[in-house]
């Protein structure tokens, strides 16, 4: 059904060294990883679709607070103050026990730029023209960036494995 993705598939830190002018980009990563990638990509890309694998508590800067519930509470406040939209805020909220809080400046602002959109649908395949996610839509993009901590089970990679 597919001969592999026609655009650029970037892994690890390959996204750091390049611009994305005129390109539509999909980022498939955990929030921890996406929060590093998205502020960089959103500066130059035409559009960015962020497929977040799992949310994380995020602070924009280091704060002199002890790790644990107090720091998480600060992160929750940061989310509350940074994101007005209730559903977007819910998508970004980790539920259950979360081990820690990551420091990533500019993530929430980047997500709310025009042309940037957050999805929480699982991505199950990378196909010729983009990514397919479990809500049944094929998202056409020119570049796919996979977070280093993402275990991808997608067609293009499956073909490589069996080749």
């Amino acid at each position, binding site marked *: 059904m597919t001969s592999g993705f026609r655009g650029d598939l970037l892994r690890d830190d390959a996204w750091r060294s390049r611009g994305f002018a005129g390109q*539509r980009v999909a980022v498939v990563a955990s929030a921890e990883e996406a929060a590093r990638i998205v502020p960089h990509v959103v500066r130059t890309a035409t*559009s960015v679709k962020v497929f977040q694998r799992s949310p994380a508590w995020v602070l924009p800067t280091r704060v002199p607070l002890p790790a644990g519930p107090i720091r998480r509470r600060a992160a929750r406040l940061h989310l509350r103050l940074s994101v007005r*939209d*209730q*559903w*977007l805020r*819910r998508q970004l909220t980790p*539920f*259950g026990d979360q081990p820690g809080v990551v420091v990533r400046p500019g993530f929430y602002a980047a997500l709310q730029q025009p042309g940037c959109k957050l999805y*929480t*649908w*699982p991505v*199950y*395949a990378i196909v010729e023209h983009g990514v*397919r*996610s*479990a*809500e*049944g*839509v*094929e*998202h*056409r993009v020119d570049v796919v960036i996979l977070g280093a901590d993402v275990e991808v*089970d997608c067609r293009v990679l499956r073909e490589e494995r069996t080749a």
Partner: protein
Amino acid sequence: MPDRTEEDAMTYDFDGMLQTIKDRQWSLADIDWDAPGAETMTDELRAKLQPFMADLMWIEHVGARGFASLATMAPTPVIKEIYEYFHAEEQKHANAELALMKRWGMLDEDGAVPEPNINVKLAIKTLDTFGDSLPLTGLATLIPLLECALDGALVKFLLDEVEDPVCHQVFRHINSDEARHITVDFQVLELIGAGPLHKLLIESASNLKPQVVLGLIVVFVPLINKMRDNIVAMGLPEQKLYNAVKRFNTIGSRGDHTRRIPAYHVLRSQAAMVVNRAHPYHRLLADPLVRITGLVPARLLGRPQAWVDEVTHEPVAS
């Protein structure tokens, strides 16, 4: 047959199921939405089915939101991931049903999503307000009941009425997804039911919070009844509704632990009353609530959260 222990209930292969779910993904882009067959939709059938399809699409969309809540309270990380897939799959079903509506000329020229009725709007409001704080056992029991009804009655009815091969192709996918949902839903009930009794009772007691009880009654009783009466009026034999509820009972009673969940018994009794039109439940509770909720001005409910706008009939997005 010897009673199964808690350990047995824990041995269901949720990892294997998760892998199957990943392997069986399908996309709206796999379907040829312009294939022949749309012409089999007559004007008469189109007019009759349009409100039914809109309700069906909205119930799947609201069901998706239910799985989003379930994912936040899943008992294990694997079940959480399964629920995340189910959340997306219910959304996919809503998307596919909207795409069928478009194919059949049931949408306006801009392809706008039909407005939900007041009872769906109330359900959206309830899920937005309480969804993530509803107790696991209540939600985990309600969802398979709705799925048995959707799968067993509504969808079968639709397939009896419609010849279009694309509709049959779409619902082959949807039905096979729903079969997995129902399997997992009941295995999770078994897992929860096998837990300590005091935990079940505490959870059930929190089900009895006044806002939860009122919310469930005011919102879901008329929502279900309106849909029930609409489809029976369209020609769905009531026997099919009985069968759907019977299936919920049959699968539920097959396990050894599901019956320990109080919410299962409450919903099972309610479902039995819903299908029996002669039961006083209708005269005393459901019918008046349908009338009363029909008077609620939608603007009182405020703007729903942004997830309601996520439904789309487009198989491909740039």
